[in-house]
């Protein structure tokens, strides 16, 4: 069994609340003599995590969830209040912009300072200086004080120093977001090369694209706790779904039509092709929407259904009148219906399926019942659903086309 590079057990972090002078004095006494309770608030709690050599782990979560605190604990900047951190290897940490840069200093002097902070000797720095300057690629600005740099240039320099260090574990906190497109690509290329040579990565980002391209595994930190750990595709999808749901809750409350009307949906469920109830479908799989509607006058109602994404974006909807489908009577006043999707090409994620009962004339909407389905699978497609397409060879006359 390989020894993990990073091993966290039951990590928690409390920040002291020191709003008043009395609290401050009490805190000092408690810290010095290691006893007594300190007034605090909790930023992180009970986190267990292992990172093996060669793994790449993404860290996601809302603002203030505790991601940066966790990275700082691993980097050794913050001491955890509870639990144990074991790190076996040289850590290169890029926490926030321009770690360890002095604004009055020129880029060149800051390279020396930052490299010294990472534990490099002067000789080591000098031998790598050229490659650092080349990677940063900020031209003659390297001789100017950092305070005149744009934030992107500072990040370029910081990343360049970190690359020169060749760490066993690279920790980056949302640094890619600041660089321009070409620098981001350069960084991603570098990280990919670093990973292919057996490097270990801990990446914190709000870009699910970066997490999915660079990380095998991902961790979702929520309210200071480890909410989900697993394959980066699964975790990012859950995370996005969470946000979509959160947004839709904020945008509008679910419209509930009270079943005051006579026509109504009594039951609604989803099943697979063998008739078993399910809420999980693979992309391209088979899904059946089934239900039972109630009709007061023994006339078959019109059934309307719609599929919306978790954030409320409508995808598709239709009603049974279109195809002259009539729900069949299965009991007095009870009409069953079933819609089958033979090839469901929704992209992975969570979707809401709504069904409504209408009067037989299809004029009035009586009620709404909803259920949800989760589409699983891995894809790098974008959008809501997959459209049928094929890639073809170019013809000779393409060249003759006018330029846009």
């Amino acid at each position, binding site marked *: 069994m390989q020894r993990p590079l990073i091993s966290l057990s039951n990590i928690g972090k409390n*920040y*002291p609340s*020191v709003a008043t002078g009395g609290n*401050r*004095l009490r*805190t*000092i006494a408690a*810290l*010095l003599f290691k006893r007594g309770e300190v007034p605090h608030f909790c930023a992180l709690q009970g986190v267990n995590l292992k990172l093996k050599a060669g793994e790449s782990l993404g860290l996601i979560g809302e603002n203030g969830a505790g991601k940066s605190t966790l990275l*700082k604990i691993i*980097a*050794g*900047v*913050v*001491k955890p209040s509870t639990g144990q951190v074991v790190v076996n290897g040289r*850590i290169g*940490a890029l*926490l*926030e912009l321009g*770690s*360890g840069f*002095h604004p*009055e*200093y020129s880029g060149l002097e800051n390279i*020396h*300072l930052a490299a*010294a*902070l*990472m*534990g*490099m*000797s*002067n000789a080591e720095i000098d031998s790598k200086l050229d490659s650092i300057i080349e990677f940063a690629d900020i031209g003659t600005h390297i001789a100017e004080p950092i305070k005149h740099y744009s934030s992107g240039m500072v990040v370029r320099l910081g990343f360049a120093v970190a690359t020169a260090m060749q760490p066993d574990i690279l920790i980056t906190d949302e640094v890619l977001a600041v660089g321009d497109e070409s620098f981001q690509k350069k960084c991603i290329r570098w990280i990919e090369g670093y990973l292919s040579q057996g490097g270990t990565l801990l990446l914190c980002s709000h870009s699910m694209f970066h997490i999915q391209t660079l990380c095998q595994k991902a961790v979702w930190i929520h309210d200071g706790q480890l909410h989900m750990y697993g394959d980066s595709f699964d975790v990012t999808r859950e995370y996005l779904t969470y946000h979509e749901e959160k947004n839709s809750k904020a945008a509008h409350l679910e419209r509930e039509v009270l079943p005051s009307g006579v026509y109504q949906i009594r039951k609604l469920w989803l099943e697979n092709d063998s008739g078993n109830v399910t809420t999980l479908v693979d992309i391209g799989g088979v899904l059946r929407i089934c239900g039972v509607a109630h009709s007061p006058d023994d006339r078959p109602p019109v059934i309307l259904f719609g599929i919306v994404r978790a954030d409320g974006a409508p995808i598709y909807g239709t009603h049974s009148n279109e195809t002259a489908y009539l729900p069949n009577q299965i009991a007095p006043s009870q009409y069953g219906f079933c819609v089958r999707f033979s090839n469901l090409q929704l992209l992975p994620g969570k979707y809401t399926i709504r069904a409504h009962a209408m009067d037989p004339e299809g004029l009035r909407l009586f009620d709404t019942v909803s259920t949800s389905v989760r589409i699983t699978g891995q894809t790098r497609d974008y959008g809501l659903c997959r459209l049928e397409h094929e890639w073809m060879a170019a013809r000779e006359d393409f060249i003759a086309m006018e330029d846009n």
Partner: protein
Amino acid sequence: MPIRNLWPYRWLLLNFLSREIKSRYIGSVSGIFWALLHPLALLAVYAVVFTAIFKVKFPELEGHSFILFVAVALWPWLCFQEGAQRGALSVQNGGGLIKKVAFPHELLVYGAVLSTYAVHVSGFLLVLVVLALTGSDLHFSSLPLVLLLFSMQLLFTSGLALILAALQVLLKDVEHFLTPLFMVWFYATPILYPASLVPQQIQQIIALNPLSYFITRVRELLMTGNSQIGWQDLVMLLSCMLFFLIGRWFFNRLSPYFEDFI
């Protein structure tokens, strides 16, 4: 952390040192000369006030000028005062680093204290040469002992700076206490007067001040050439080491929590 574990960070300490020295005078035209100008101006003021106005005379001068008497004490004092003050604020000023990079925080304090000593000890040596050239009778043979004395004082200053720096991060009030504290301390140290002029009743209090030891000793070494080493010197050497270790213990006990407070 044992002191030897700081060895891999020697480049960082060197970097902090040069950064401290440079940042102090960066952007000023006359640069490093300010380091010399400030004590020289102080010395000029004291010379005018005490020799031209008060016309002080006391037996300890033994034919030396009052300027020499004060100069020999002024630089060690400035080393101590500036070193302790800069050291006390160094951790707070290095907050940007502490929040983002893992490194031994005590290096910030050492950088501040050492750079002050480097600047003022060089200034001191320069002034001694100038004084000797202008006809003052100085005992340069005891210079190695003077430098040893400076190292002891450096240990004491670092110990104090470590304690003050840690308290400053957690309490913030420390910096407001520093100016009055050092003003009182300055007059409670025999810099402008010899220890023998102090009335009997408060002589005990003055003797408790470690700075009176350093300054009396520097004067003895340079002005009278008395380079005998007694048990008192050994006790002081051990006390300085002990005080430094206490300061380190205090600082490193609190340093893991600095990030929480900065």
